[in-house]
Every structure is written in structure tokens, then in C-alpha cells.
């Protein structure tokens, strides 16, 4: 009973908390961190409770915003029956969103440990930080297509603000580029939603899915082959692919990651694209359902082709970069390519039940695994930057001796990214590869294999510098000019601990692969049966 309130709390708590740093900032300076830590602790507790209710209690927690007036109504107007359509906005925590909720809450809390020393320390920064967390929660929990757009834009707005939060010119340029491309992407998504709304008359994901399948009496047949519906999938896929930074639409992402303050890079690399990819997966699987793609095999083939290109191009671009942050920024392009590839594989007409199952496992495990790995990698890189001033790959020469913990975490996370067993990166890639094999999509199998080799290319280059290039060989041993940033060139335990924690988790989650895949079993069944709702 009380569980129904949890999804609302998850969104409301950080948004209300976001006002506090500004208000309290009138009386005391630098109160932001403490407020954020308190708010996000509550958030993490609520998220864990919700996760418990969803996975241990086997519930599908639904909350309809607005009280008694709203909800599923049987209204007959004239000769038309609304067939139990929803009135209002639903928040849904099911087998898919539950995992993301826990991920967002825990990562947002953990990154605070990093931000305490690394800054920025202004109160406004923490307001934006909390608003971003609230937006991400909403994005994950909402069951309404238009509401998803609103949260997408809240997340976008806060990300633009956070990217530019160190007040440098370069970050402002990066943020503006992100704003222009990101907003165009979100607007594309809105066009797609508009088309769907015009055809189905509803915005609720479950209801849209039902109308598309031709369930209500006032729809003669399934609407899957109508041009308007196909076009709407195109717009939605392009919009969300822009937000997730898939290859030709990724151009905002390396600048945004590399110019933003280190704490922001950790947060957005772990969560922002992840939730966009989640939204794409949810809409592809649950709203459009495999039947849509059986009617339009071209659309999914196109999606797979773009994703495959993204994997290869992203990896190659990553290998060509000289700045470490950019290396891993492009690496995200490749990894999200893999995820979108698996999203497409799950609904490909050639995919049997087995292939769908493996593809869904692959998406979920890699989505969570990548968030942990990439967040940890950027934490390690940021800490190496503020302690040793190393920003370029060549400056990493011999750093392993001076910074054993950070270098060690970087190595473990790097290997996890490549997909060395037993780390979580391996489990995700293994399922994605296995799904492609089961569906007999051989080009994709090749791409998964190639992505591993290409990841090895850029990770090994970095590790070779860290561990095997002597310090004096390449760079002069002059102490580098300390960057007089907000952090003052020092590293706190929190920063190192976050990197180490991520490394431990990246390996630990690998062993928990079976638990993760069990948790999303209801989702797999829902997709296999083309059911619009994920029931436990």
C-alpha cells in the first residue's frame, strides 16, 4: 500500500531538496554539499525500499499522479467506450525501471563523495545536481510518453547547466553545443510522440501499445504498418539516439564530457546517456513491441546498422584521441552502440525466444555495468588529473608507481570495459554476442567481437603508458604546473575511494550476473509475449 507512494517520493525529494541549497545559502556559505548528501541519502533509502518491493516483493508498483480524479476509468461518451484507458500520468516501477532507480540513486550519492573535494562548491551547483537526480528518476519511472519528454528536458537542462558549471569559456561552448543538439534530439522525440498521440489518442505507454496492437474495439486492425506509426518510431529513435550519443549523432558528447568539471563528467557519463538508452529500450520493447518490428523489419535493420557503425566508429575514434577524457568519451559512443544493438536484436524478427532473452539480459547488464565502469573510469581519470596534472595519454607515463590505487582501479575498470571475465563488462558483452549468435545475425557477432579488440586497442595503449613506460622516457621530469582549479590540485580519500569502489563493483557485479538476469525475467516474458505491461 505505502509502496505506491515511493515513486513520487523519489522524484519529489530531490526536487524539493534542490531548493534548500539556495535558501540556506542565504544564511551560510557552502551548505550545498551537506544538503545534497542528506537528500540523496534519503533518496537512496527510498530507492532501495522500492527495489526491495519490486524484486523481493514481486510487485509492479504503480502510482497515478493527481489522486482519485485520475486513474484507469471506464467512461462511455456517446457510443465510444474508453476501454479502461488511463486518465493522467502513471509512474511505474517494474522489473526494468526498478534496477535503474536503484542505480541512479546510488550513483548520485556515491559521486557526492567525489564532488566534496573536487568541487564545484557553489550552492547552485548542488541545486542543479539534485534537480538532475530528480529528473533522471522521473525519466526512469514515468509511464507516460509526454511526461518522458518533460523529464528528458529537465535532465537535459540540468546537464547543460552542470557542464558549464566551472564557468570557463570552453565548457560554455561545449554546453551550448550540447544544448543545441540535445534540444533538437528531444524535439524529434516530441514529434514522434505527437504522431503516436494523433494515431492512438493516448500518451500512456501501455495504452499506446494496446491501441497499436489493435485491441480496442474502435481500431479495426493492428496499426503497425501505418506510415504515421513507422514515422513516429523513426523520430523517437533518432531523438533518443541523440541523447544516448549514437554515432552520427554523438558530436556533442566528447566535448561535453571532456570540458565539464570532473565530478560532473563522472555523474553524466554514468547516468545521463544510460537513462536515454533505457528510454529507447523501453519504448522499443514495450510500446512498439516485437510485432511492430515483425511488420516493419526494415526499421529494426536500420537501427541495428546504425548501432553497429556506432560501435566501430566510436572505438576507432577513441583509439585516435590524445586526451584521456576524450578517449573514454568516444568509448561511450561505442558501448551505447552495443547496447542499442542488443535493444534491436531483442525485437528482431529473426530472434527466437532464446535470442530475445539473451539480448534483454545483455542490455540490462551492460547498461548497469557500463554506468559503473564509465563512472569509475572518469573518477580515476579526474583524480589522476587533479593529483598529477595528467590530462593526455602521454602524460600517463609511469604514473602507476606514484598513484598505485588510482592506476590499479583504472586497470581493473579498463579490463572490465574490454570484457575480460569475470568482470561485469564481460557478462554484458557475452549476452549481447550470444543473442546475436542465437538470432543468427552474423555481422553483429563480428561487430561484438571487433568491439572487444578495438576496446583493447585504446585501453591497452593507456595501460602501457601507465605501467610500462618509465616516467623519464617521454616527458620531462619537471613538476607540472599545478592546475589552480577549485580543487587546488589535491585528491581526497573520497575521490580515490569512488574509483576503487567502482573497480570492486565492476568485478563483483560480474559474479552477480545471474541475480541481475533473474531480476529482469518478467521483462523478458513480457517482450516474448508482446505484452504491454511487465508483470511479475
Amino acid at each position, binding site marked *: 500500500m505505502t509502496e505506491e507512494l515511493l515513486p513520487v517520493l523519489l522524484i519529489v525529494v530531490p526536487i524539493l531538496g534542490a531548493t534548500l541549497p539556495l535558501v540556506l545559502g542565504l544564511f551560510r556559505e557552502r551548505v550545498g554539499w551537506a544538503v545534497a548528501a542528506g537528500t540523496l541519502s534519503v533518496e537512496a533509502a527510498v530507492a532501495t525500499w522500492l527495489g526491495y518491493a519490486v524484486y523481493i516483493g514481486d510487485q509492479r508498483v504503480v502510482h497515478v499522479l493527481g489522486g482519485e480524479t485520475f486513474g484507469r476509468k471506464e467512461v462511455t461518451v456517446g457510443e465510444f467506450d474508453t476501454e479502461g484507458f488511463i486518465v493522467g500520468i502513471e509512474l511505474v516501477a517494474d522489473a526494468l525501471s526498478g534496477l535503474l532507480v536503484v542505480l541512479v540513486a546510488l550513483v548520485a550519492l556515491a559521486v557526492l563523495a567525489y564532488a566534496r573535494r573536487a568541487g564545484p562548491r557553489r550552492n547552485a551547483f548542488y541545486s542543479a545536481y539534485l534537480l538532475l537526480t530528480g529528473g533522471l528518476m522521473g525519466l526512469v519511472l514515468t509511464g507516460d510518453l509526454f511526461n518522458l519528454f518533460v523529464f528528458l528536458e529537465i535532465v537535459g537542462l540540468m546537464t547543460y547547466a552542470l557542464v558549464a558549471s566551472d564557468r570557463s569559456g570552453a565548457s560554455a561552448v561545449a554546453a551550448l553545443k550540447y544544448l543545441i543538439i540535445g534540444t*533538437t534530439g528531444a524535439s524529434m522525440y516530441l514529434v514522434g510522440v505527437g504522431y503516436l498521440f494523433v494515431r492512438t*489518442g493516448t500518451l500512456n505507454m501501455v495504452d499506446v501499445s494496446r491501441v497499436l496492437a489493435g485491441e480496442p474495439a*474502435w481500431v479495426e486492425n493492428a496499426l503497425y504498418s501505418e506510415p504515421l506509426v513507422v514515422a513516429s518510431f523513426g523520430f523517437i529513435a533518432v531523438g533518443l539516439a541523440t541523447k544516448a550519443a549514437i554515432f552520427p549523432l554523438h558530436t556533442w558528447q566528447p566535448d561535453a564530457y571532456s570540458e565539464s568539471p570532473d565530478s560532473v563528467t563522472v555523474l553524466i557519463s554514468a547516468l545521463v546517456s544510460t537513462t536515454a538508452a533505457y528510454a529507447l529500450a523501453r519504448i522499443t520493447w514495450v510500446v512498439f513491441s516485437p510485432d511492430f518490428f515483425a511488420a516493419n523489419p526494415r526499421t529494426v535493420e536500420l537501427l541495428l546498422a546504425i548501432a553497429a557503425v556506432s560501435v566501430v566508429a566510436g572505438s576507432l575514434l577513441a583509439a585516435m584521441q590524445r586526451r584521456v577524457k576524450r578517449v573514454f568519451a568516444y568509448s561511450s559512443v561505442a558501448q551505447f552502440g552495443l547496447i542499442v544493438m542488443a535493444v534491436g536484436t531483442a525485437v528482431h524478427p529473426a530472434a527466437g525466444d532464446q535470442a530475445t532473452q539473451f539480448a534483454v539480459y545483455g542490455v540490462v547488464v551492460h547498461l548497469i555495468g557500463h554506468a559503473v565502469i564509465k563512472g569509475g573510469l572518469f573518477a580515476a581519470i579526474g583524480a589522476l588529473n587533479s593529483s598529477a596534472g595528467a590530462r593526455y595519454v602521454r602524460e600517463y607515463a609511469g604514473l602507476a608507481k606514484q598513484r598505485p590505487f588510482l592506476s590499479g582501479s583504472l586497470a581493473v575498470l579498463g579490463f572490465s570495459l574490454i570484457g575480460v571475465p569475470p568482470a561485469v563488462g564481460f557478462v554484458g558483452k557475452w549476452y549481447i554476442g550470444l543473442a546475436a549468435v542465437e538470432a543468427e545475425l552474423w555481422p553483429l557477432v563480428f561487430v561484438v567481437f571487433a568491439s572487444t579488440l578495438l576496446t583493447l586497442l585504446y585501453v591497452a595503449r593507456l595501460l602501457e603508458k601507465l605501467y610500462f613506460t618509465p616516467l623519464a622516457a617521454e616527458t620531462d621530469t619537471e613538476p607540472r604546473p599545478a592546475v589552480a582549479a577549485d580543487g587546488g590540485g589535491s585528491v581526497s580519500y573520497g575521490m580515490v575511494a569512488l574509483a576503487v569502489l567502482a573497480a570492486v563493483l565492476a568485478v563483483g557485479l560480474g559474479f552477480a550476473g545471474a541475480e541481475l538476469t533473474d531480476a529482469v525475467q518478467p521483462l523478458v516474458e513480457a517482450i516474448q509475449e508482446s505484452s504491454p505491461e511487465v508483470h511479475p
Partner: protein
Amino acid sequence: MSRLVSATAGVTGTPLVTDILTNQYTYLLFALLLVIGLYMVVASSNLVKKIIGLNLFQSAIFLFFVSTAYLGESGGESGQAPIIPKKAVAYDPYASPLPQVIVLTAIVVGVALTAVGLALVIRIYGEYGTLDEETLREVRADD
């Protein structure tokens, strides 16, 4: 949609499709504005003009939503604004309020985006003294 509008408005019979012929021009305008806006975002090298293009692009989408809610002449009556007095006995044809609410929300989002975008533009101008993308690239390459 036509069915939904008629369903919420309580009109039986004539679908909207026939009316669209007379109202179709808004959809054409939608497509035109969408493409012009996108072209401005891509082609203009002035950062402020890019943001104007973005606004145009979004306005096109608002126009699309509002157009879907519009109820033209159907059976001698055109759609009213969806404000239903409490004492109303019969339902007149009312325009669907949902797309209008959507547009209202989207406008708010658009305003916020414009504000953030312009704030960034001001900072870029303060830092580099230019709003031109090409010049900006040259200035930054010199750094």
C-alpha cells in the same frame, strides 16, 4: 485522433478527415517551419541565430499539436474552447484540451531552454568576444 476528439466531445458520426482538407495548411506550415528551423540550426554560423532556429523548430511542433486539437466546421458547428460550464446540459463539440496542455508545458520547457542557451551565449561572448561559430573556432584553436 478524429475519433478521440469526437469521443471526448460527444459528437457521433463525421470523422475529421473531411475537415482536414480545409485545415490542412497548418500541417504544411508545420513541416515548413520544422525544416526552416532545423536548417537555421545547422547552417547559420551565428550562435544567437542557431537558438532562434531552435525556437522556430520547437514552435513548429507546437503548431502541430495545436492543429491536431482544432475542430473545424463539422455538422454546422465548429469546436469550442474546452471550457465546460458546470451547468452545461449537452456537450457541444469541444476541442481536445490535451494537446493544448502539452503545448503549454512544451512552451515552458522551450523558454527555459532559451534562457539557458542565451546565458551560455553571453558567457561565450564575454570570454571570446565573438558570436560567430567560425571565428570562435579560430580563436579557440589559438589558445
